[in-house]
C-alpha cells in the first residue's frame, strides 16, 4: 500500500448496508480518529457525523435491498481527518434540496436532520451523487487544539 501524497495513514472499511453495522462503522472510525489529538467531545462529534452518513447509506441508498457501504478514513500529513462514506445506490436527485435542514424523502419516519448534524459537527461536508450510481459524502475535521499544518 503506497499511501497517496499527503496522506499519513488510512483505513478502509467495507460492510453490508445493515442497521447493526452503523455502530460498528462509527466506533471503528472514532478509534482511528483517536490517532489525532481530538478531544472526547470532538470524537463524539465524529461518531455522530459518521453515524448519520452511514445510516443514510443504509436507509436511502439501496431501498429494500442490501448493498455495500465503503468508508475511507485518512489522516493527512497536516493532521486533518478526511472521511469518505461511499455507496453504489440510487443517488440523490437534488443534493442542494437534500442538504436543507428538515428536508427528508421519508417524512413519515425521518427527521431530515442527518446532513444538518454532519454540517454542525464537522469542519466541511461535501456531497457528490449521481442517479443510479451512488453517493459519496466527504467529511473533514481537524482537532481544534492542534490546527492543521499546511
Amino acid at each position, binding site marked *: 500500500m503506497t499511501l497517496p501524497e499527503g496522506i499519513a495513514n488510512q483505513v478502509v472499511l467495507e460492510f453490508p448496508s445493515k442497521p447493526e453495522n452503523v455502530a460498528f462503522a462509527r466506533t471503528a472510525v472514532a478509534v482511528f480518529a483517536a490517532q489525532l489529538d481530538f478531544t472526547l467531545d470532538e470524537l463524539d462529534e465524529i461518531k455522530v457525523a459518521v453515524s448519520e452518513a452511514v445510516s443514510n447509506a443504509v436507509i436511502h441508498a439501496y431501498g429494500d435491498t442490501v448493498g455495500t457501504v465503503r468508508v475511507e478514513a485518512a489522516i493527512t500529513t497536516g493532521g486533518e481527518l478526511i472521511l469518505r462514506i461511499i455507496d453504489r445506490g440510487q443517488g440523490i436527485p437534488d443534493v442542494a434540496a437534500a442538504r436543507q435542514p428538515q428536508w427528508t424523502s421519508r417524512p413519515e419516519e425521518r*427527521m431530515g436532520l442527518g446532513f444538518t448534524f454532519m454540517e454542525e459537527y464537522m469542519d466541511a461536508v461535501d456531497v457528490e451523487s449521481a442517479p443510479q450510481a451512488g453517493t459519496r459524502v466527504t467529511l473533514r475535521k481537524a482537532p481544534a487544539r492542534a490546527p492543521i499544518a499546511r
Partner: protein
Amino acid sequence: MHIKARRMGDSLIVRMEGELDLKTADAFKARVRAELAASGRIRHLILDLRGVPFIDSSGIGAILGRCREIREERQGRVIALAPRRPVRRVLALAGLLRLVDVAETQREALAMVKEGSAVP
C-alpha cells in the same frame, strides 16, 4: 439496547441501556407505544437516559415522535433524566430541549411532572 419500563402514578418511566440509533430506535418506539396503549392513565414520559452513551438523528426522531404523542394525545410532559454529555449536546443541537425538560435525578423528574401538570 435493553429497555425497562414501569409506571409510577401517571408517569411512564422508560430506562434504556445502550446506544440509541437506527438499529435500536424502533425497539424504543415500539415499547413506548405498547406501554401507552396498555394504560390510558399514563400522561407523562420520563426517559431515563443514564445508560445511553450515544444518540444520533435516528434516536432523536424516535424521541420526538414520543413527545408528539405524549403532548398532543395525553397533554403530558416528557422529561429526559440525566442524559450524558454527548447525548445532552445532541438533544440541544436538535432543538429538542424546547420540548423536553431535563432532570438530574428521578426524584426531580417526578417532582417536575407533579408540579405543572399542564403542557409547559
